[in-house]
């Protein structure tokens, strides 16, 4: 079931770089510089299992993985991702992405206390929810000063509770 709560137009601060475009289809892997294609596909499935939102296009998850790819330029991070991607398939007869959700969740739970899992889970949350397309889907409008703030755009428009007294 797709649940979309309050889809809005969302803005990244105009001073910041815009999100990178992710090609549709398997050629998205061309954006990778450090991860192998197999690692990247595993991480896409991992993030979709950690943060499952059917309403979000797969390209958004792939963009989150592109941040992992960027971080993997550092040897320490690359090592963490290598170890994670090996451990997550260890003992399973199929690639992580070929497993049903039940088994994907089990595979992640087995690693839950490892430093590698904690890194992947924290970075998944860090980058997936920093995506302006996710903001739009879940009702977060983002940057506002360049639009005059919210003083004339609904900072006090909640109408499902009674009006407030004037002496607050």
């Amino acid at each position: 079931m797709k649940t979309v709560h309050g889809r809005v137009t969302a803005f990244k601060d105009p001073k910041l770089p815009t999100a990178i475009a992710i090609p549709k289809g398997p050629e998205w892997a061309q954006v990778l510089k450090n991860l192998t294609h197999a690692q990247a596909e595993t991480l896409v499935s991992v993030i979709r299992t950690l943060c499952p939102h059917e309403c979000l296009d797969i390209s958004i998850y792939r963009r989150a993985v592109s941040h992992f790819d960027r971080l993997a330029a550092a040897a320490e991070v690359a090592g963490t991702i290598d170890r994670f991607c090996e451990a997550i398939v260890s003992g399973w007869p199929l690639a992580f992405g070929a497993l049903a959700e039940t088994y994907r969740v089990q595979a992640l739970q087995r690693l839950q206390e490892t430093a590698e899992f904690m890194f992947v889970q924290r970075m998944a949350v860090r980058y997936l929810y920093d995506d302006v397309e996710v903001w739009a889907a879940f009702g977060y409008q983002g940057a506002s000063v360049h639009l005059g703030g919210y003083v004339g755009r609904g900072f006090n428009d909640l109408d499902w509770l009674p009006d407030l007294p004037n002496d607050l």
Partner: protein
Amino acid sequence: MLAPIYEFSADDVVVIIGSGAGGGTLANELCQRGLKTILLEAGRHITPAEFVNDDWAAYEMLSWLDKRTASGNWRVARDHPNAPSWHCKLVGGTTVHWSGCTYRLTQAEMQARSLYGDVPGTSLIDWPLSLAELEPYYDQAERKMGVTRTNGLPAMPPNNNFKVMYWGAKRLGLREISTGRHAINTVPYDNRPATIQDGFSVSGDQHGARWSTLNVEIPKALESGRLDLRASCRATGIEHDNNGAAKAVIYVDANGITHRQAAAVVVVAGNCIESPRLLLNSASGRYPDGLANGFGHVGRHYLRHIIQTVWSIFPHPVNMHRGELMGGLIADFSRHDPSRGFAGGYYIELNAMGLPTTAAFLNPGWWGRDFADVIAQYANMAGIFMTGEDMPQPGNRVTLSETETDAFGVPVANLHYDDHLNDLLMRNHGYKTLTAIHQAAGATRSIEAPAYPASHNLGSNRMSAKPEDGVLDRNGEAHEVKNLFIADGSAFASGGACNPTLSIVALAIRQADFIAKRAQS
């Protein structure tokens, strides 16, 4: 006017280390009183035009991100092991990040030991000064900061998140509910504009409606012609003379050059980890355990307040991200009430974050369907927050690593914190109250978020009436090192319940009076 550049050998200057609420305010107050002042700041001097409306980009731009370690039974040690405290590194310090809440300590809070009695395991003391002595300085602080509801300035208008809190609290029979007090302009004041309710005051406040030392105190100090502001300069040690009095600061500039700046007075205002770290790193033959540490209190009794948030989902939109983030106050639980089963009180305030940081701080480590379903309802989410008094314990402390140093050769700091039973009981009471308020307003689901790295850092170089109980006297001068002062939250004798910035500013103004009077005599 061109800013002065004082000689490295100038021994008639006041050198302040840190440019936040304490150091930045003190610098301006001393300049206005005619004193030559050098302000060292570890971070860069950036203009508001550089600030961004973006949770993570702002965090990375503003925060002190140098490595630390954490230990103890607190959840932060697990969730944020290398960043257990949240404060800033740039000109303006953490006043570029704060949310503008401006409340006063009470006389009862300043007599915590006398009022709460002997709470086992704590190191409670009374403040060595009274509220009456601080009140004239609170008045001055509120005037300079443009605090709402003082000096005829209008209150913060209520936003959506406030409306949820208000009706929940009202339905529970709570009485002391308002939008609170903030150093955020609701009308133009002191050449700063009125808020446009942009919701990004904690990201640097590009719009400039909120008081900070970056946009108010430091420009005024520079206009006086007496401030020598040295940004991107990291202090690494303090030296004393043959009589044991402070006389110079060692620092490394942006080019990596080490300097020795002479001083008549040295003031440390680097927040609760860096200030004790600098004192501990300034050990000498005369002060083998670090400056001002003869009784072993430097770095101890660290306080961080009982701070936590409940995030709730409602059947209809809230849009908590719109507007100033913490525009609400409930004071019903702020007084000490032994019948609740714990010492001290807490205030209830609002909290709002953007989607990126809400997802990160809701419950670090949480994943799967349940987490995803909650965060997907961000638009219908409200946040409610508490800040309460935590108990000082001697073992909650800043120490220096014996094995690891930073890029400047200074040992990395470790922050140890164990929750006291009193802290746990207050947390428990607070969670239940916050959840009850949201449920009464119609919440369908409430998430009791764990505490995140504190920005209310207090107590680690505390004032005390007796030298054997603390580090500083009632003027914030070290008991055992003349001309060495502290001007940040680490000077607090006890934590009180409220947001500390107004008190840090009031204490800095009072300290400026003291330093200026001594300089005249």
